[in-house]
C-alpha cells in the first residue's frame, strides 16, 4: 500500500449528488389546483376555498375582496342563501360541514362595520340599462360597474332590493344590512331610479342611450287557483301578504286572523306561516298536498317553522271554502305524485294565504321582436343569458332557474360578463373547470377533529312574536375557527407534508406563497408526496421513458 493512500477510504460529503436518481422515474408528481365541491355547487360561482384560505390567516379584508369578485352581497347571502356548498362540503363526511355561510356573513358584516371600500372602476363610456333591483339586477349592475360600464337601473317599487326586500322576512334579513349593501353598489356610480316602472323596454333603452339592457324583474305574480267558495273567507296571496308585512312589520298595522292557513309547501309558504305567527296568529297551519319528502321548501326553513309552532297538515288539498271552514281532501303518494283518496275533513281558519308559486310579469316584453315568453311569463335566454333580441339580456327568477337569491346573483355576474364581451364585439372565452376534488382525494388522517361552531339563535318566544333576526353571527374567534376547519380540498394550504415525506429530498420548499417545487433531477416518482398530501393537491402523471 502506498504510504500516501489513507488506510480508510474517504468519500466527499454529498458526492452522491452526482447520481441523478430522477432517471429512475416513470411517473412524476405535479401540483395542481382541483375544484373543491363547495365551489363546484355554488350557483353564484364563488371561489369559497380561496376566501376561506385568506380568512384562515385572519386576512378578513382580503377575504372579503375575494368574495366581492363574484358576489356583491355577502352579508345578505350569508343570511339567506341555502348554502348548497355546505351540503357538498367534504368535511361533512368527516365530522360536520364547514359553516361557510356563517363565515361569509361575518366577512360581509365586517365590511359594513368597517366601511371597507372597493377599487374605483375606470369609466369605459358604455351604458347599460338594468330593469329590476333584485339580486340578479343588482349583481349585474355591480359587475358591469366594476368592469367600467355606466349603469342605470329602474325599480318599480319605492325601495330597491326586489324579493330580498319584499319576499324575505326581516327575521331572516334585517333591512339595514340590505340597505348597506345596496348603498355600496350605488357608490360605484350605479344610478337607481326608484318608483319607475318600465313599460316599453326598447323605448327605455333609447331614452337612456343604453347600448345593452339586462332584464331582471323577478316573479312577483302569485299563481292563483279556483277554489269553490260558498261564502268567501279572507283569502290573500303570499306575495302581497309578505309585501304588506315588510312595509309595516308590527302587530297593529297588519291584522291577521286568529287561525291562519297557508296553502303550499315552498319557501314562500314557510315565510308566510312564520310571518303570520309573528303578527299574532294563535294557530298557523300549512296545508300541503304531498309529504315532507316531496316538499320543495328548504329543510332549515321547515325546521325553524316547526320550532316556532307552525303546524303542517301533510297530504291535503283544499276542495272548498265556506266562511271559516276549509274542506280538505286527504291525499296519498303514488310514484311521487299526490293522488286523491276520497276522504274529506274540515279545518277551521279565518284567513287563507295562497303560496302556490309565482309567475313573472313580463307582458311588457311581448312586443319585442325575437323574444320568447312562456305562458307563466318566463323568458327564454341562451347560454350567454341573451334573449332572442340582440343586446337584451335577462336573468333571475324571470328565466328558467331554481329561483334563489344565490342563482340570481350568479345570473347577474354571468350576464354582466357576457354583456361586457358583447359591447366589445367579442364573445366570452369558454372557461375550463379544474377536475373535482372529491372526498376520496383527501388523506383525512392529517386533519384534527373539530366540530362546527354553532351560531346562537334568538329565544323561541321572541321568534314567535318579533321580527328580530333569528340567527346571530359569529364573532372573530369562532369565525376564525370556522374558516380554519376548511380542508382546502384540492388546493395547497402549505402544510409541508410533501416536503417532509420525500425519502429523496426531492421536494423543494420555496417559502412564503411560492409554496413547493419538485427537483426532477432526484425525484424517483414513488408518489409518497401525493399519497400523504392531506388536500389531494398532487397528481402523479405517467412519463414516457
Amino acid at each position: 500500500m502506498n504510504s500516501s493512500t489513507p488506510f480508510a477510504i474517504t468519500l466527499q460529503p454529498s458526492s452522491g449528488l452526482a447520481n441523478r436518481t430522477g432517471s429512475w422515474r416513470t411517473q412524476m408528481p405535479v401540483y395542481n389546483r382541483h375544484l373543491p365541491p363547495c365551489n363546484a355547487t355554488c350557483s353564484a360561482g364563488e371561489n369559497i376555498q380561496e376566501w376561506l384560505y385568506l380568512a384562515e390567516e385572519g386576512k378578513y379584508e382580503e377575504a372579503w375582496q375575494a368574495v366581492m369578485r363574484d358576489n356583491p352581497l355577502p352579508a345578505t347571502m350569508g343570511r339567506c342563501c341555502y348554502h348548497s356548498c355546505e351540503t357538498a362540503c367534504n368535511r361533512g363526511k368527516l365530522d360536520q360541514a364547514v359553516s361557510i355561510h356563517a363565515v361569509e356573513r361575518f366577512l360581509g358584516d365586517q365590511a359594513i362595520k368597517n366601511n371597507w371600500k372597493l377599487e374605483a372602476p375606470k369609466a369605459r363610456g358604455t351604458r347599460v340599462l338594468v330593469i329590476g333591483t333584485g339580486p340578479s339586477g343588482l349583481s349585474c349592475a355591480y359587475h358591469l360597474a366594476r368592469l367600467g360600464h355606466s349603469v342605470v337601473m329602474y325599480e318599480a317599487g319605492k325601495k330597491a332590493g326586489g324579493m330580498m326586500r319584499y319576499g324575505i322576512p326581516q327575521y331572516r334579513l334585517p333591512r339595514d344590512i340590505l340597505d348597506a349593501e345596496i348603498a355600496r353598489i350605488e357608490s360605484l356610480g350605479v344610478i337607481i331610479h326608484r318608483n319607475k316602472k318600465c313599460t316599453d323596454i326598447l323605448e327605455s333603452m333609447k331614452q337612456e342611450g343604453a347600448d345593452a339592457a339586462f332584464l331582471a324583474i323577478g316573479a312577483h305574480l302569485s299563481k292563483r287557483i279556483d277554489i269553490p267558495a260558498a261564502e268567501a273567507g279572507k283569502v290573500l296571496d303570499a306575495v302581497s301578504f309578505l309585501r304588506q308585512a315588510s312595509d309595516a312589520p308590527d302587530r297593529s298595522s297588519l291584522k291577521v286572523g286568529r287561525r291562519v292557513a297557508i296553502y303550499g309547501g315552498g319557501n314562500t309558504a314557510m315565510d308566510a306561516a312564520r310571518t303570520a305567527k309573528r303578527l299574532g296568529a294563535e294557530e298557523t297551519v300549512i296545508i300541503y298536498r304531498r309529504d315532507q319528502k316531496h316538499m320543495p321548501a328548504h329543510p332549515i326553513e321547515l325546521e325553524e317553522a316547526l320550532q316556532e309552532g307552525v303546524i303542517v297538515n301533510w297530504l291535503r288539498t283544499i276542495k272548498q271554502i265556506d266562511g271559516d271552514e276549509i274542506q280538505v281532501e286527504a291525499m296519498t303518494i303514488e310514484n311521487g305524485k299526490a293522488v286523491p283518496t276520497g276522504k274529506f275533513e274540515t279545518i277551521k281558519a279565518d284567513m287563507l294565504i295562497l303560496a302556490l308559486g309565482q309567475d313573472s310579469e313580463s307582458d311588457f316584453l311581448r312586443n319585442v321582436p325575437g323574444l320568447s315568453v312562456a305562458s307563466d311569463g318566463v323568458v327564454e335566454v341562451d347560454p350567454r343569458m341573451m334573449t332572442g333580441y340582440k343586446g337584451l339580456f335577462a336573468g333571475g327568477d324571470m328565466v328558467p332557474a331554481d329561483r334563489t337569491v344565490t342563482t340570481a346573483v350568479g345570473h347577474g355576474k354571468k350576464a354582466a360578463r357576457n354583456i361586457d364581451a358583447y359591447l366589445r364585439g367579442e364573445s366570452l372565452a369558454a372557461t375550463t373547470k379544474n377536475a373535482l376534488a372529491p372526498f376520496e382525494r383527501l388523506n383525512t388522517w392529517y386533519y384534527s377533529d373539530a366540530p362546527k361552531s354553532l351560531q346562537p339563535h334568538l329565544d323561541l318566544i321572541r321568534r314567535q312574536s318579533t321580527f328580530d333576526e333569528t340567527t346571530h353571527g359569529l364573532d372573530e374567534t369562532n369565525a376564525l375557527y370556522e374558516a380554519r376547519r376548511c380542508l382546502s380540498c384540492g388546493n395547497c394550504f402549505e402544510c409541508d407534508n410533501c416536503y417532509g415525506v420525500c425519502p429523496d429530498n426531492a421536494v423543494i420548499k420555496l417559502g412564503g406563497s411560492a409554496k413547493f417545487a419538485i427537483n426532477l433531477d432526484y425525484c424517483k416518482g414513488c408518489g409518497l408526496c401525493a399519497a400523504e398530501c392531506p388536500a389531494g393537491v398532487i397528481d402523479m402523471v405517467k412519463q414516457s421513458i
Partner: protein
Amino acid sequence: MTATQVKFYQTGTFTVGNRLLDEGNRAIQALMERSNSLNSGHRACQGCGEALGARYAVDAAMRGSGGKLMAVNATGCLEVFSTPYPQSSWQIPWLHSLFANAPAVAAGVAAAQRARGLPETRVLAQGGDGSTVDIGFGCLSGMFERNDDVLYICYDNEAYMNTGVQRSGSTPPRARTATTPAVGSAPGNPPGIGKNLPRIAMAHGIPYVATASVADLRDLEAKVTKAIQIRGARYIHIHVPCPLGWGSDPVDTIKVARLAIESGLFPIFEAEHGHITARRSIRRLVKVDEYLKIQRRFAHLFGKKGDPDAIANFQHIADENIAIYGLAPVAAT
C-alpha cells in the same frame, strides 16, 4: 408523549408543518434550513422507509446536538445505498466499519472525542435490524452494559433487505422472505417467540429506550431530540417499511407504518432506566387485516387457502400490546 400537542383545529400536529403555525411548533423537517443529513442521490428504492427514517432521525440529532454530531453505521441497506464507492450521500462526519461492530466503534469514537477534549460531540450509531438484532447484538449489549455515551438507532425493516430479503430475528411470524418462502404446510417465517429488542434494551436498565415510526414524525423528532442530549447509552427502535421486502406499494410506505401503529402491532412508547414512562395512544383503531393485506409478504394468509389462525394470532399479538402498553384510544384529538 414528549411531543407537545398543539391545539390547532385545522391539522393539529399531524402534518409536518403548516403556514398558520409558529415556526417553533413545526417539525424540524418543515424547516427550509433542515440539515438534509442524508442528501439526494442515494440509491434507496422508490418509497424507501429507511431512507426517510434516517433523514428524520439524523436531522433531529443534528439539530439537537447543535451540529456537533458524528455517526457510525453498521453494514446494511442504509450503508450500502448511501455510500456506493466513490460517492457518499451523507453531509455529516460518518464512519462505516463492519456488520457486527457499529456499537463498539461508536463507543470508541465517543472515547476518542473525550480524549481529544471534545466531549460536547454527540455520537450516533445506526444500523438495520440485521446488524442490531442478530449480527451486532453482542457489541450492542456490551455498549449498553458499559453505559457508553452513544445513541444507537435501529431502523427496523424486519429482514435483511440489502442482500435480497433474508429473514432476521426481527422478521414477523409467517412473513414470506427469500429464506422462508410461502410454500409447504406452514408457509413463511416459522412463528418463534421473536426477539423484542426494545424490551431487551430496557432490561439493561440504560437511561433511555424508545420506539418510533416514520408514520409519526413529530413523535420521532421529539424522541431523538431528547435522546441525543442524554448522557450514557440510549436506544431508539424505528419502524421503517420496505416496499421491496414487504411487497407493499412504494406509495404506501407511510400508510403501512401508520397501520402498524393503529392496529397495535407496533407499540410506540418511551422508557427510562428500565421503566415505561410514556406511550402513544392509538388514534383510529384498526384490525390487523388492514395492515397485513397491503403487503405481499402476507398474501398467503388471505385468499382461498388463507390462514385465519395466523391472522387471529396477529390480532392476539396486537391486543396483547394494547393491553400491556396501554395503547387504547383516548378521547378524540
